[in-house]
């Protein structure tokens, strides 16, 4: 170790000495070179042997020294030996140095070899990586799918047939196993396909262009047509003066007809029918379509008819949601619009157009009827009003001419208070209306005949399907006009009766002229009051009266005898004869339930009146007056002096009174 330190010191010294002198360094260099050469040329194993020999010599010398020292410490020989040993030590030192140099050299070669090895390894790894990359690339290539595989090619046979010969010729003896040929065939086929497709694309393009051209042509023509319309309108306008001159109302008709197309189907049927019936029969009837045209156009466009059902189901879903919502917001409910209310409103939706019919009677009395279509309920409802001439002032008369009253029971039992559509019941129940009847003031009356004239037919007990539509128009209009006429006549009579005057009777009717008794009261009564009366019991019990009828009270007096009559006038007057219930107050109270004579009077009035003319009510009252006279004069001739002529005051087992008037001589009453 010490030796090494020395050597390093030497080295340092050497390095330090280097810059001082060139010659000195040269020596060092030479020494180093020399030593390096020496070490290089010497063999390690020889050096090792030499070293071992030296070590043994030293040991031997040392032993000799020891021996000498012990025998003769001051011998001369010792000195020699010492020198010898020192020499030997120098040798070892030299050996060591050589070895060191050799060692350095070895290290250096090792490191250079190592470096070489590393670069080789690096090279090798690069190659491996490259190989791997190439393998994946080839895999990718192998996995690649060309688009041409998806292309549908024309079959081989067709290709051979249709492709030009210079392309197909070389495949005339095509071998399937030949890869190259297969590939080139494929290429050829693809190319052929491409060519064909290009051709087709061109064809398509040319066709599209042609289409465009035609479209343009169409647009041009359309423009021309549109331009034609104002021209035509001009022509029509210019013919107006001529039309006016010739008294033609084509224009209005056209306007109406245009509106008619917007009507819902049922109203359209009715409109067409009634217009044609009117024009054929020349009735005094005005037919109009009223309402918002724009709304109707919208309505038509929406085609509400068609998708009604879908809406319905939507509504149901909505309903469920709404219910949930309502539950959540119950405390705020009052603030919001009630969904039920909304639905109610929706259910009562009407078509924006209505058909208005005005039937005119000669003396200024006319009836206006509005037909409207309930789009949800799918029924026709009718509202009506009457235009009265100024001379109708009586309350009863006005009541009788009231529109609703007039149209009720045009056909027996048809009050219009029940919906003819069986579905309606459930519809109104669903949204929470109490009954159809309660809706009537709002939407109008749903008379059966109104449905019939509009061609609507429902599965109802009373209706016959063959009575639908046009055939009904005639019937219904006829009935309507008859009804108008009879009502007008009735109103006239009632007006006079209210003033306690007997209306003038037609000449052909036989009746006794000179009444002694007189009319003292005529007034309407309510159904309740009518039913409460004792002497109407029989009619009420037999269900011959209905709340829809009109009820009147009549008093006839002569002296202190009073005849009270309660009269029922049915809606279809005079088809159903007004029914009289009588009560005579003279020496007791007598009526048909306790007196045969009064029963007989009622019989004559109610079922034996004969001809049913429109002045039926007056005839009945005139007869009643004569009956009362006869009754009083035959019962108590002392109080009531005889003014009428009769042969017997009673006859027959039933002691009949002579109530029947016979126009013989001055007029005679018989049994």
């Amino acid at each position, binding site marked *: 170790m010490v030796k090494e330190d020395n050597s390093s010191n030497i080295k340092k010294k050497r390095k330090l000495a280097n810059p001082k002198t060139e010659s000195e360094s040269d020596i060092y260099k030479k020494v180093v070179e020399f030593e390096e050469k020496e070490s290089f040329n010497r063999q390690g194993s020889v050096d090792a042997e030499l070293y071992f020999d030296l070590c043994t010599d030293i040991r031997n010398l040392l032993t000799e020294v020891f021996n000498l020292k012990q025998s003769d410490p001051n011998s001369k020989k010792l000195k020699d030996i010492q020198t010898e040993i020192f020499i030997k030590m120098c040798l070892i030192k030299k050996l060591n140095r050589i070895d060191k140099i050799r060692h350095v050299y070895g290290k250096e070669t090792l490191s250079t070899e190592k470096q070489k090895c590393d670069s080789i390894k690096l090279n090798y790894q690069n190659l491996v990586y490259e190989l791997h990359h190439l393998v994946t690339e080839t895999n990718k290539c192998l996995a690649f799918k060309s688009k041409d595989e998806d292309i549908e090619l024309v079959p081989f046979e067709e290709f051979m047939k249709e492709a030009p010969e210079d392309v197909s010729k070389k495949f005339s003896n095509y071998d399937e196993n030949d890869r190259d040929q297969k590939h080139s065939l494929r290429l050829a086929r693809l190319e052929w396909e491409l060519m064909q497709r290009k051709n087709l694309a061109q064809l398509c393009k040319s066709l599209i262009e042609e289409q465009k051209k035609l479209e343009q042509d169409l647009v041009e023509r359309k423009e021309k047509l549109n331009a034609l319309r104002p021209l035509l309108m001009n022509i029509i306008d210019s013919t107006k003066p001529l039309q006016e001159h010739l008294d033609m109302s084509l224009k209005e008709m056209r306007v109406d007809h245009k509106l008619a197309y917007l009507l819902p189907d049922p109203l359209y049927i009715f409109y067409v029918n009634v217009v044609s019936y009117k024009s054929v029969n020349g009735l005094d009837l005005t037919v109009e379509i009223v309402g918002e045209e724009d709304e109707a156009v919208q309505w038509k466009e929406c085609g509400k008819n068609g998708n009604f059902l879908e809406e319905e189901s939507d509504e149901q879903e909505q309903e469920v949601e709404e219910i949930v919502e309502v539950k959540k917001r119950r405390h705020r409910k009052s603030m919001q619009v009630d969904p039920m209310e909304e639905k109610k409103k929706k259910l009562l939706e009407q078509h924006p157009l209505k058909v208005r019919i005005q039937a005119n009677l000669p003396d200024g009395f006319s009836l206006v009827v509005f037909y409207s279509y309930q789009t949800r309920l799918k029924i026709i409802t009718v509202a009506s009003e009457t235009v009265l001439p100024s001379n109708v002032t009586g309350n009863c008369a006005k009541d009788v001419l009231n529109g609703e009253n007039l149209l009720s029971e045009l056909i027996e039992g048809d009050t219009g208070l029940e919906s003819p559509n069986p579905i309606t019941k459930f519809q109104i129940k669903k949204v929470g209306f109490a009954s159809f009847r309660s809706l009537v003031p709002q939407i109008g009356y749903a008379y059966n005949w109104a449905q019939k004239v509009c061609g609507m037919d429902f599965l109802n007990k009373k209706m016959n399907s063959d009575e639908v539509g046009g055939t009904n128009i005639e019937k219904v209009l006829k009935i309507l006009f008859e009804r108008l006429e009879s009502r007008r006549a009735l109103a006239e009579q009632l007006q006079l009766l209210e003033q306690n005057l007997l209306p003038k009777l037609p000449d052909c009717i036989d009746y006794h002229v000179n009444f002694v008794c007189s009319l003292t009261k005529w007034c309407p009564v309510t159904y309740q009051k009518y039913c409460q009366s004792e002497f109407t019991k*029989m*009619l009420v019990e*037999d269900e*011959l009266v209905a709340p829809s009828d009109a009820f009147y009270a009549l008093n006839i007096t002569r002296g202190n005898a009073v005849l009270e009559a309660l009269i029922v006038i049915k809606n279809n007057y005079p088809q*159903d*004869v007004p*029914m009289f219930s009588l009560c005579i107050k003279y*020496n007791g109270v007598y009526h*048909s*339930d*306790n*007196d*045969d004579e009064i*029963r*007989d009077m*009622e*019989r004559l009035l*109610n*079922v*034996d009146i004969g001809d049913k003319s429109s002045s039926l009510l007056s005839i009945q009252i005139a007869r009643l007056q004569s009956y009362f006279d006869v009754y009083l004069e035959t019962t108590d001739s002392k109080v009531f002096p005889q003014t009428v002529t009769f*042969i017997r005051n*009673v*006859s*027959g*087992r*039933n*002691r009949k009174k002579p109530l029947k008037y016979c126009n013989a001589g001055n007029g005679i009453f*018989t049994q």
Partner: protein
Amino acid sequence: MLTKDFYSTILSQTFSPCGNYLIAGDTYGRISVFNLSKIVQTDVVLNKEDLTPRNKITINENGQINSLLSTPSFLLVGVSDILGYNWKTIKSTTVQKPQPDWRIEIPNRKDSFENADINVMIHDKEKNHIFIGCGNNNIYVFDLETRRLLKTLNKHTDYLHSLCNNGTDLISGGEDGVVNLWDIRTYKLTNKIVPHSNEAVARPELGKWIGGVSANEDYILCGGGPKLSLWHYRFLTNSTVFPINDRGIHVAEIHKEKILAGGKSRLFYQMSFVGEIVAEIAVSAVTTYSIAHQEHPFNTLCLAGSSPKIDVCANFMYKNQQLSLY
């Protein structure tokens, strides 16, 4: 709809000889035939058809049928003539327009331009005579065999309401308020009662007319405007005035020691001779004009009047069933 049927009034009834049919004549000149045999069976549930006529025959559209009389071979219908119908035609439901087999014309009084009503007909089975009480104040006696007029009894001054034959005498009551007693053998007027001159029975506000008479060997029953009353046959004095509430008697009959009476009253009465009310039957009619009763083949009392309904009583005590003209 109010029909004339609603106001129909039945004035006469009779049973067919077999007792199974009830014939009722009304003011519209129609007779209606009811089949009773089913109605009297108590255990049968009746429908409406059983209670309405099995057939109806219009005899005279312009006159009422005031009287009907059943004889063994014919039904006699009193309109303005007496029409004799064979029972077969009456019972048949298929004959379209039944025609009478014969008719007896009533001689008209010269001063009348109206045909006389035949208000009452009774049959004397022993002699086969019929007594006819007419609207022309006369009583006619016909031989039913020869249909010849035998006698005209013309002492009444107004039309006849009721007749009764008690075996020896014919008792007649009429609108003139007199009850006449005629000897059947001689057709002489033997006696008369004038009830309205008797203060105990007179009801001047209702009139003097006698609506019903009946008699047995000891008593005469009569009533009408005057109260219903019983008179001794021999002394012609009033013995009982019946305490019933009515405004005119149209039907009065002595039947097996009982008095049957009805009229312008909503009740029909059954009473004893001393005036005790045995039964009151509420009737449908305002006025009862006709009763008919039989014992064979079943007990039946039919009450009819100014109503389209006929009340049927099996035991004469209360109403069992109600027939209807429509």
